[in-house]
């Protein structure tokens, strides 16, 4: 998940299981990201060559979709749900609390690659609103700013007191 760099060869290995067709672009990018963590410049070029379209076309497609990342993601990928149910139950407060506790803004990754904080449209656990997921697996629901502080105490400003 948190791989910082990967090799051309790893990308080539992934490409062997796909057809050289434009309709394969999205599945290819998904697989590279799933296996290697993010889409590097080298990977984008390799996909362009493989499908035989300009690199700009690969970027055009990849940048359109929210799923794709072009930088390595932190070891803990925290997605804060901003769906409607979470919104009316105070998702904004949860996001503020996460930003405060982690010391990063939404969309950022901490310098030590420990945390990535991302707002997502809806994770579909509306009964648990407001909710977050960690690494797309662990779900924490019915959160309050206090519970957030308990989950992520490390960077808390007041920890020293």
């Amino acid at each position, binding site marked *: 998940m948190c791989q910082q760099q990967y090799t051309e060869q790893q990308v080539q290995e992934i490409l062997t299981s796909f057809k050289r*067709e*434009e*309709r*394969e*672009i*999205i*599945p290819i*990018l*998904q697989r590279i990201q799933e296996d290697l963590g993010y889409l590097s410049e080298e990977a984008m070029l390799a996909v362009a060559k493989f499908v035989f379209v300009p690199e700009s076309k690969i970027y*055009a*497609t990849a940048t*359109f*979709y*929210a*799923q*794709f990342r072009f930088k390595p993601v932190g070891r803990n990928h925290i997605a804060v749900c*901003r*769906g*409607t*149910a979470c*919104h*009316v*139950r*105070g998702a*904004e*407060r949860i996001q*503020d*609390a996460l930003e*405060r*506790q982690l010391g990063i803004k939404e969309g950022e990754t901490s310098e030590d690659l420990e945390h990535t904080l991302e707002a*997502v*449209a*809806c*994770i*579909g*656990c*509306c*009964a*648990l*609103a407001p*909710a977050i997921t960690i690494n*797309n697996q662990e*779900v924490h*629901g019915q959160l*309050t*700013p*206090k519970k957030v*502080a308990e989950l992520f105490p490390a960077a*808390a*400003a*007041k920890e020293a007191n």
Partner: protein
Amino acid sequence: MAIKTILVSQGTCCKSAGAEKVLAALQKEISEVGLEAIVKTPGCHGFSEIDPVVVIEPEGILYAKVKVEDVPEIVHSLKEGSRWVERLYYRDPITNEGIPCVHDIPFFNKQQRTILKNCGALNPRDIHDYMEVGGYQAIRKALLEMTPAQVVAEVNRSGLRGLGGAGFPTGKKWEMCAAAPGEIKYVVCNADEGDPGSFQDRSVLEGDPHAVLEGLLLAGYAVGAQESYLYVRAEYPLAIKNLQIAIDQAKEKGFIGNDILGSGFKYDIKIFQGAGAFVCGEETALIQSLEGKRGMPYPRPPYPVIAGLHGKPTLIDNVKTLASIRWIINEGADWLVSRGTETSKGTAVFSITGKVANCGLVEVPMGITMREIVFEIGGGIPGGKKFKAVQTGGPSGGCLPEALLDTAIDFDTLRAAGSMMGSGGMVVMDEDTCMVDTARYFLDFSLKESCGQCAPCRLGTMQMHEILARITKGEGKLSDLDLLMELSEGVAKGSLCGLGKTAPNPVLTTLRYFRDEYETHINEGRCPSRSCKALISYTINSDKCKGCAKCVKACPVDAITGAKKEAHIIDGSKCTKCGVCLDECPDAFGAVECC
């Protein structure tokens, strides 16, 4: 004594609440105690509020919010066969009375479940479970007893309308695709459920994947397609997994393949994972995405049924629409005709969430009133708060006020009220929800999801969002309201696809039904719901404060000072209005005030 079947639902929402751990503990305990029982793992039962749920059949006893610690008691009570674990019964939120049987719980017994019938009852990963309840009988009947034209005619006669939101007559669409010239045709299941706050498609895909596959098969046979795609959001990993298992099992049984049931009908079903773009729920954008391009909608005609994926005739239907088809073929069109309202047949599936006691997924006949859904099935508003609005249809829909609670809901009444059915999200809002902020929230969503090709959508939603944000900060002018109306008209008229055309709906409906809230923000610089951050402040009532220092300790920005046993004070210049102090202050004191 009959052998018990123990059902532990394993949908995404159930798992989030800890159903996997309960299941593991249950299996362990059963083998240790030596209880003779069958454990089943169906998909979501819909009542997310009380997850994780354990149901004991044949009695239908339901245990709510089961924890791992509860498992030994459950298993022992079954082993001894003496008593039920009464403390785990579901409790009515109003009377607090324990209700043992699943069929007596108002959340379930007011529903009419057909599309959701198997969800929460069958193991979605076992094709035999589905076949035992009549699964794949419809495709058998169609292939062996009916011509494709007869299948189309039956769907047409049933009056089924597309359950993805727009409500286009399904049979009409099938008819056009079947009549379209061309050897190669495609069928696509639109499972790109992107509306924030709705999860009904996910539940069907997770809990009853074979019903969707059977719908795809019937559609393919009816229109003459050989290949079909399930376009599923990548954000639904469990749905994708269950669908893949279902496809593999259906292939093994010969329901998907080169000569299905010896009829000569050849058909394949593939999964395509959507990469996260709300606009791809729009059919032309979805096609672009399937072709590996940016998901930008393009003008119609030609409609996808004439020229869609790779330029070939393509039939695109929603998950719930496809899951309904087998009923029409099995039971006949009249079965559907007799249900629902004059213009909207059958049932509708809503995910009911927000400020409501019973969050979850419900299937109700068309024509039911919003009051029945919110107050009878949904159990009303928790915490003694006052109802304010129901938001339907996600970012394309609107907020409907109390005065409309008794309106019978169908495609047309919702549209007349300025909202829409959409994919079936229903978010309940109480007195603490600000309607201006709600409109701002949806515009924020639409502007981020706008693909950007139509200037009125790209720029208009941004302008509208700016104005709404200004009003929520108390910096609005009365003339802004006229400007919002004007922009709404421009965005709706000047946009190509449904996203832009309906993006102003949240603004238009809140202006129509809650104009006074806008005016209070503008004229008095006050948010009546005390929700807009810029317009509220937190203070500590020194008469009530006992100096317990809980808030001092909890404040994340050290904005509260005061020694123990002395009244505390909030420094407004440091306060970020996070509300933690209000949460922390013991109810008995109630010293922190928000105004």
